[in-house]
């Protein structure tokens, strides 16, 4: 478990991280989402005690990072896969990390095998592709068999197969009851991986919610229907009290509609359907709205008395988005 309490980091006059309070829980993949420059990496560096917080506190299972005995056995992290001495072989890189935390040599061979780098274990790291470097970073994170894993943008530089591999890895680590904290600036990637979502923008917390709730609140779901007997279908749906929106290309859309219900209705009236598909509007769009609002808010932040009303604003973006959508529909 990682607990942040009012975590703040100021670089000169700029607040990179602004009073973050949230908890990353075990057994889940927690996605840490925000646009570039939102403060994700700074937050992660503070978790590892690499950067000192200006204010606030972050604890790993109740303790500060530098109080952990053999920290690699508690927390495994990949912040930047390039944080390796290029002249050292993958094996020696992992060996020196293992030795510093009393991890046995056999474990080095195990993790090399897990990430598929055994064949290049004695090659110098500077010859590695970005994808291989990511794998080496992940091997180092897994070395101490830690209960907590933290990845900063792990999909960067990986090919589709690699992305699928790391997604599966993170899910299986969480399924084993571990705490998995992974940052990304791509919503669609998170939607496939994360169970829980922490969204930040301009260093501030924008959302701390389960993935399911986020989807429910932020994605418009509708059923798309196409039929050669369009007029009859419209009539039947109208009779049943279902509101239909006509779209281009002869398609119909029913907001929050149940595909089963509509299908059965059409069957009962012997109406031929060419398409009946439940759909979700893009989460990416919801995410951009959410973070854009943070940017907007930030621009007005010198208005007096401007302490961030977190709960209110969180309700605000949900309803705002909903209202905007209805207006458009």
């Amino acid at each position, binding site marked *: 478990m990682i607990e942040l309490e009012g975590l703040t980091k100021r670089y000169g006059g700029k607040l990179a991280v602004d009073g973050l309070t949230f908890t990353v829980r075990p057994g889940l993949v927690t996605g840490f989402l925000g646009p570039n420059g939102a403060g994700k990496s700074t937050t992660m560096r503070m978790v590892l005690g690499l950067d000192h917080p200006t204010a606030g506190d972050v604890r790993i299972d109740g303790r500060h990072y530098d109080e952990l005995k053999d*920290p690699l056995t508690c927390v495994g992290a990949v912040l930047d896969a390039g944080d390796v001495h290029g002249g*050292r072989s993958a094996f020696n890189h992992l060996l020196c990390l293992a030795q510093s935390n009393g991890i046995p040599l056999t474990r080095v061979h195990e993790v090399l095998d897990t990430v598929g780098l055994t064949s290049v274990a004695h090659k110098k790291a500077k010859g590695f592709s970005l994808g291989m470097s990511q794998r080496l970073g992940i091997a180092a994170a897994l070395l101490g068999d830690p209960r907590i894993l933290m990845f900063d943008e792990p999909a960067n530089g990986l090919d589709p197969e690699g992305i699928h591999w790391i997604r599966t890895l993170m899910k299986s680590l969480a399924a084993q009851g571990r705490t998995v904290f992974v940052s990304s600036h791509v919503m669609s990637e998170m939607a496939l991986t994360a169970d829980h979502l922490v969204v930040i923008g301009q260093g501030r917390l924008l959302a701390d919610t389960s993935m399911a709730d986020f989807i429910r609140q932020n994605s418009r779901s509708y059923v798309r229907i196409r039929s050669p007997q369009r007029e009859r279908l419209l009539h039947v749906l109208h009779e049943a009290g279902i509101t239909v929106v006509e779209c281009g290309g002869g398609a119909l859309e029913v907001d929050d509609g149940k595909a089963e219900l509509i299908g059965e209705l059409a069957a009962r009236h012997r109406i031929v359907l060419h398409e009946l598909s439940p759909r979700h509007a893009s989460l990416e769009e919801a995410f951009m709205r959410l973070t854009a609002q943070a940017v907007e808010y930030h621009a007005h932040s010198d208005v007096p008395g401007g302490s961030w009303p977190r709960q209110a604003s969180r309700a605000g973006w949900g309803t705002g988005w909903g209202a905007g959508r209805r207006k458009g529909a």
Partner: protein
Amino acid sequence: MTAVTQVLRSEWTKIRSVASTLWTLSLALVVTVVLGVLISALTRNEFDRANPADRLFFDPTYVSFAGMSLGQLAMIVFGVLVVSNEYSTGMIRTSLAAVPRRGTFLFGKIAVAAALALVVSVVTSFVAFFLGQAMLGPYRASLGDPGVLRAVFGGGLYMTLIAVFSMGIAAMLRSPMLSLGILMPFFFLISTVLGSVSATKKVGRFLPDQAGSRILQVVPSFGDDTPYGPWGGLGIMVLWVAAALAGGYVLLRRRDA
């Protein structure tokens, strides 16, 4: 196994697994020995033509260490790279995530690097002495002469301390280029100039290399009024090294990695 032992093992793996360790240390040995041998051979040929005062104050041990002034530069590179490689590669973040206690990390690293430097330096010093004396032929000193063993072992300590001083400076400055850009001209030019100009000589001889290299001399030079002895000089150098290490440690603790 304690945390300190673990860090020492880890740092040993780090230091032996990069190429710069081998080439800097072997360069320090080869340059010191080869230059010492050449200058010893030249000195022997010139000895009969030297004036009586020079003959009276002739220090065969010191002559065989003539290559150290150049060999120490390789030691500086070794010291700088051992520490600053962590920063220039980004490895420092991985290292500090593995060993978050800054003191354990820095002093573990420096202890391993210093021990390795000591072994190489002492070997270098003894080889330079024996080969140099062989070149000097009839004018040679022997290890049993008064002060000679101290000077030869002291030569090893001197080169080690130069390396450790460089590690402290690199820990403060982080950048290898900046560290080398300051240390190289300092030891190769500034210190020598300050030490040879009479106006600045009194200050110059308290600089780390000038004070520390006093231990290499067996026969004091003509008109020598240095206010410290061989061990006193080495003590002054140790104070410089301690200050550099303390500075490196304080900055490492304070700074974000």
